[in-house]
């Protein structure tokens, strides 16, 4: 009984200490606004809509601030809520700003040699990926998250995350290879 009580108290103390590490809310907004906005942008491709969605995420965070347990939990919470809201919003809008891979403009011969064009081309192709693939690609390569973290945020198995990343990369590599020449794909 005593041990259980001690464990519970330690846990509460640890939680309070972790909560005490949380920066003030305005600082959290300033620190993480680019992350939340960029996740929204990757699904909506609309500055206004992404801004609105990002605002909604922080507003919800403000309402749920007491439930945030630690800086790590804060980051997880923001990524999860932002991603899920962005996916829902994109579904509703049917991603009007997306460009189908097949419709992506052919680059000119001169453009092919510039890496900056490759970057903008890649952005457009990521925008055209199916929703699940786009989610994992954004969380992996924009947010630098580990597969296990991505799996938790998206409520998927780790194996599904791996599969989706693999398929997405294959798709993207194939398109780059065909459009911009094989030398760009390694």
């Amino acid at each position: 009984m005593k041990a259980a009580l001690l464990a519970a108290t330690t846990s509460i103390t640890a939680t309070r200490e972790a909560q005490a590490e949380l920066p003030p809310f305005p600082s959290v907004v300033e620190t993480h606004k680019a992350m939340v906005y960029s996740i929204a942008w990757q699904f909506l491709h609309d500055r206004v809509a992404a801004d609105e969605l990002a605002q909604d995420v922080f507003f919800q965070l403000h309402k749920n601030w007491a439930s945030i347990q630690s800086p790590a939990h804060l980051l997880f919470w923001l990524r999860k809520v932002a991603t899920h809201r962005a996916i829902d919003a994109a579904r509703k809008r049917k991603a009007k700003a997306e460009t189908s891979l097949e419709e992506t403009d052919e680059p000119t011969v001169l453009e092919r040699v510039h890496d900056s064009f490759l970057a903008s081309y890649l952005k457009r192709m990521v925008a055209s990926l199916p929703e699940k693939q786009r989610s994992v690609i954004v969380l992996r390569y924009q947010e630098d998250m580990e597969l296990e973290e991505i799996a938790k945020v998206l409520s998927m198995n780790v194996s599904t995350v791996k599969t989706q990343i693999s398929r997405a990369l294959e798709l993207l590599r194939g398109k780059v290879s065909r459009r911009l020449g094989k030398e760009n794909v390694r």
Partner: protein
Amino acid sequence: MTPFEEELKQALQRQEPGGDFTARVLARCAAEDAKKRSSLWHSFWTAPAWRVGAVAAALVLVAGGSAYEQHEREVKRETRGMEAKRQLLLAVRIAGTKLQEVRQRVKESEQIEQ
């Protein structure tokens, strides 16, 4: 990570939202907090047992209250303005989308006639 994945990472770098994003979020949260406070305030004033003490407290508050009210007014104005902007952009988006759909349907019906 392969070079292709590095390129992908470069391409997907984060973007910043508009310059006043943090201020807008904080204004919205402050407006929400003000709404909650005013409903608490109202129930405080209408509870009979508290009225005598509340009158005395109110006299103290009035002195410091005007600065707070000024701030509240500004926050409310900003919140109202930002909300009006959201509504405006929403309306423009719907109107623009509908007109584009109309153009599309006109084109489709012309094609059918041909």
